[in-house]
């Protein structure tokens, strides 16, 4: 019966218990929610970094000046630009370069699936080191001509057809979500993308008119050998190749990394403020609650409860409150954060990728634990105080 007393005490005063539970829910909400948002952003950035995969990307001068590359890869604005294929060979001759691979960009005017234009990104299956590692997670087979792979946000399932410039392409697979704008693109190997470029030329797409698609590439992705300085290699390219600008991917990402660290900082400050506030309010609430119940505790002393017993009752109540609050907070955070993650991504304009289930569960457990520990921690002072008081004095003070 004594072991049930803390429960009964909490049930006996539902409003007061609910208030305490809500306060500790704020705590676990901030621990779990904060960690989820921050790690989703971090993972998003990591995903973008590994998807770009290259140290340097070489593009035509004009595209570099207009930031077309960033528009396509990071802001998700469809576009295209081309340069001569021989630039690929020239770059591969520069010292310190480990691997090069060409990419081809084409913006569809209207695809069968989407009201908005879709970015088509072509890669060279033989040399590619950037797209393939990612693609292989969803699609291990060889791509046939006419096959495309759809980014996670493309509104078409595997097996369905998409039409670009009058050509029909089969969606061979849907790619894993990256949380970046790359999810809005369609991927194809060089054979397919060249066929699409030829079709686009027939439809009269400006830049392609005077050129043979076979001789064009859009960009060169470059991996620098270990031990070579990425900046130096990129300078070399800029000096030796006319009409080509080498862009360090680090620079492209640094803007994102910067706003990410800004957001992280604000989120952190906010979350710690909520946590500190919740702890203080909890301590005050427990102390008030115990003061209000002084007489009840005195009666327990009268019938023979030791100081330790009283402290035990107070601490058990606080653990129950912490546990229930912890679960409530995590649940509330799940309900708020997961469905609205996409909205959040749009609003802050940063790559956002939810962590895997194991990480989520672990974070949830630690958030509940944090609230569970915070309960007795904030009640400890009151528990000690309740033990110290003079029973006779309380009994007489009515």
């Amino acid at each position: 019966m004594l072991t049930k007393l803390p429960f009964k005490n909490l049930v006996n005063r539902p409003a007061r218990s609910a208030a305490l539970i809500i306060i500790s829910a704020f705590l676990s909400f901030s621990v779990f929610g904060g960690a989820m948002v921050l790690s989703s952003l971090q993972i998003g950035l990591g995903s973008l970094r590994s998807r770009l995969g290259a140290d340097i990307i070489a593009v035509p001068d004009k595209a570099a000046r207009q930031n077309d590359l960033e528009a396509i890869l990071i802001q998700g604005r469809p576009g295209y630009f081309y340069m001569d294929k021989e630039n690929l060979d020239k770059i591969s001759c520069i010292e310190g370069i480990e691997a090069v691979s060409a990419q081809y960009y084409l913006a569809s005017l209207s695809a069968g699936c989407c009201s908005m234009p879709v970015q088509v990104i072509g890669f060279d299956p033989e040399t590619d080191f950037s797209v393939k590692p990612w693609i292989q997670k969803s699609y291990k087979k060889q791509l046939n001509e006419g096959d495309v792979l759809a980014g996670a946000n493309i509104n078409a399932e595997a097996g369905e057809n998409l039409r670009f410039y009058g050509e029909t392409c089969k969606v061979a697979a849907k790619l894993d979500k990256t949380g970046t704008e790359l999810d809005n693109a369609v991927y194809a190997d060089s054979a397919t993308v060249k066929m699409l470029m030829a079709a686009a030329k027939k439809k009269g797409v400006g830049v392609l008119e005077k050129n043979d698609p076979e001789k064009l590439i859009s960009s060169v992705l470059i991996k620098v050998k270990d031990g070579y300085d990425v900046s130096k290699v990129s300078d070399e390219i800029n000096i030796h190749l006319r009409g080509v600008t080498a862009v360090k991917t680090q620079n492209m990402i640094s803007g994102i990394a910067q706003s990410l660290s800004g957001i992280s900082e604000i989120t952190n400050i906010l979350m710690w403020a909520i946590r500190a506030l919740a702890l203080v309010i909890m301590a005050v609430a427990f102390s008030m609650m115990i003061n209000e119940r002084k007489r009840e505790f005195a009666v327990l002393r009268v019938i023979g409860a030791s100081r330790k017993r009283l402290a035990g009752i107070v601490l058990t109540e606080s653990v129950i409150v912490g546990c229930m609050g912890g679960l409530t907070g995590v649940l509330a955070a799940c309900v708020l954060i997961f469905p609205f993650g996409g909205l959040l991504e749009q609003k802050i304009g940063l790559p956002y990728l939810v962590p895997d289930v194991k990480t989520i569960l672990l974070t949830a457990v630690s958030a509940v634990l944090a609230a569970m520990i915070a309960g007795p921690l904030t009640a400890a002072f009151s528990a000690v105080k309740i033990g110290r008081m003079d029973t006779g004095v309380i009994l007489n003070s009515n």
Partner: protein
Amino acid sequence: MILKAEGISKRYFRNTNTANYFYAVKKTDLPLFRGELTAITGRSGSGKSTLLNMLGGLLSPTEGRVLYDGRDIYALPDKELSKLRNAFVGIVPQGQSALSALTVLENVMLPYYMYKKDGDIKDRAGELLERVGILSLANAYPNELSGGENRRLAIARALIHDPDIILADEPTGDLDDENTKTVLELLRAAADDKKAVLLVTHENDALSYADRVYRMNGGELTECEG
């Protein structure tokens, strides 16, 4: 003699002004004997409750000792004093003293389960509730009870462990004549059953049940002869 106060006093400070103090109970000796009902009367504020609380191990005296079977109870560690109080001392505090989260029956049984997990005390609890006339309220909660019913709950609770010593602070405070008689007879029966009973009361009728009567006046205790 089972419980004995040796030269105990209690000093209180008025407000926070440390220079301004007074004695709620002046240096007092008080023995309680097995088989005897001892009564204390006195005006309100004379220090009766203060003395009773000191005897019950609930309020440490400013000076003096309280001996239970020759042991100074305030020299015991808290846990031992608590266990002693639980097992051997039944206290009826002045005023409302039920736990609001528990039913009447649970309130009465709680002292029994404080240091014991097994055993069943339900029958005895029911019996005691019957004796004090609130068995029909066994499953009610204390806030549904009248003042007098709450007093009777506290009396049943104090008796649940069949304690050696019973300290009752105005147990008949809110009771009508008939219930007052029931309670006093209950305490008298306990004394006849070799318990030491201390009764603090305003009521002169109660004194006829007592073996000894003391009067408290401004913190000073004097035994009334006859």
